[in-house]
């Protein structure tokens, strides 16, 4: 299984994301922001960092990168996409996910190990977790406060699209403690904390992050057996 990891100018966690994909059993493929070709990958990770120096707003410029036009098209066909931190911001800016990530309410950059509670296991990125499972992965952001209008928040909750919530403390003021959400089809997930930093005992607070990467492999294996791309049937 080939999983693409996009590098934008200013990406920081592309190396760790590729490493996590490899540890999970995938073949990581490095993709470049300026190249619209996805090189035959079956899933894409948009990594953390500060693409284009966070100029204007986090993710605002990256949204218009050539690779993102291809990704946006492929999402409609069911391509699994995971946006982590800056990747989550890019997905919101590209309107592939609702809402926006804004400045942390307390204005401080927050960097710590963070407990989350998994809310949805029906996405292609979370099928290896159990609903209500508590996981511990690092969070590190200055603009991770998830906001959306009340209607959108109600809709996300009613449709089971809140993928994870902060528990034992909200690190950035995100509305309704939202740490991760998915699109209607369940193939696109944005998450503020960093599962790719929790895949090895030596460097992570747990191995809990691995589940995101093994989930997509499981989903892809299932969908190729069924002869179709992962997507709408994974909700």
């Amino acid at each position, binding site marked *: 299984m080939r999983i693409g990891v996009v590098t934008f100018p200013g990406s920081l966690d592309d190396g760790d994301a590729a490493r996590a994909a490899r540890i999970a059993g995938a073949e990581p493929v490095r993709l470049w922001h300026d190249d619209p070709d996805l090189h035959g990958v079956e899933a894409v990770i948009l990594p953390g960092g500060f693409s284009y120096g966070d100029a204007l707003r986090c993710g605002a410029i990256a949204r218009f990168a050539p690779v993102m036009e291809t990704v946006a098209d492929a999402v409609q066909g069911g391509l699994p996409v995971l946006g982590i931190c800056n990747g989550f911001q890019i997905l919101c800016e590209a309107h592939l996910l*609702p809402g926006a990530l804004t400045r942390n309410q307390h204005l401080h950059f927050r960097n710590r190990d963070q407990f989350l509670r998994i809310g949805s296991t029906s996405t292609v990125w979370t099928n290896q977790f159990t609903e209500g499972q508590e996981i511990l992965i690092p969070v590190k952001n200055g603009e991770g406060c998830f906001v959306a*209008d009340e209607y959108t928040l109600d809709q996300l909750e009613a449709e089971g699209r809140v993928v994870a919530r902060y528990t034992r403390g909200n690190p950035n003021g995100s509305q309704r403690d939202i740490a991760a959400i998915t699109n209607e089809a369940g193939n696109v997930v944005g998450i503020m904390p960093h599962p790719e930093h929790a895949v090895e005992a030596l460097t992570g607070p747990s191995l809990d992050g691995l589940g995101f990467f093994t989930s997509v492999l499981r989903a892809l294996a299932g969908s190729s057996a069924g002869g179709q791309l992962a997507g709408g049937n994974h909700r």
Partner: protein
Amino acid sequence: MSRVVVDVMLKPEILDPQGQAVANALPRLGVTDVSSVRIGRRIEIEFAGEPDLDTAREIADKLLANPVIEDFSIRLDDAVSEDA
């Protein structure tokens, strides 16, 4: 040369922690009668020829402002245009 000014502001219902931090600092300046401060962004777009408000609006709508959290307004900067 002609200049179009775009003002981008957070929507009223979106919390502005930077504005709050500034408001909270005002008493240290001896100012006590300010009830709210909100911080936005001013962007100046210079066209080589005639100002194109439609293009400026498109730039603002697609890139300069995020419609999920921000509103924008557009105006011609007359002073610069008259100088040109």
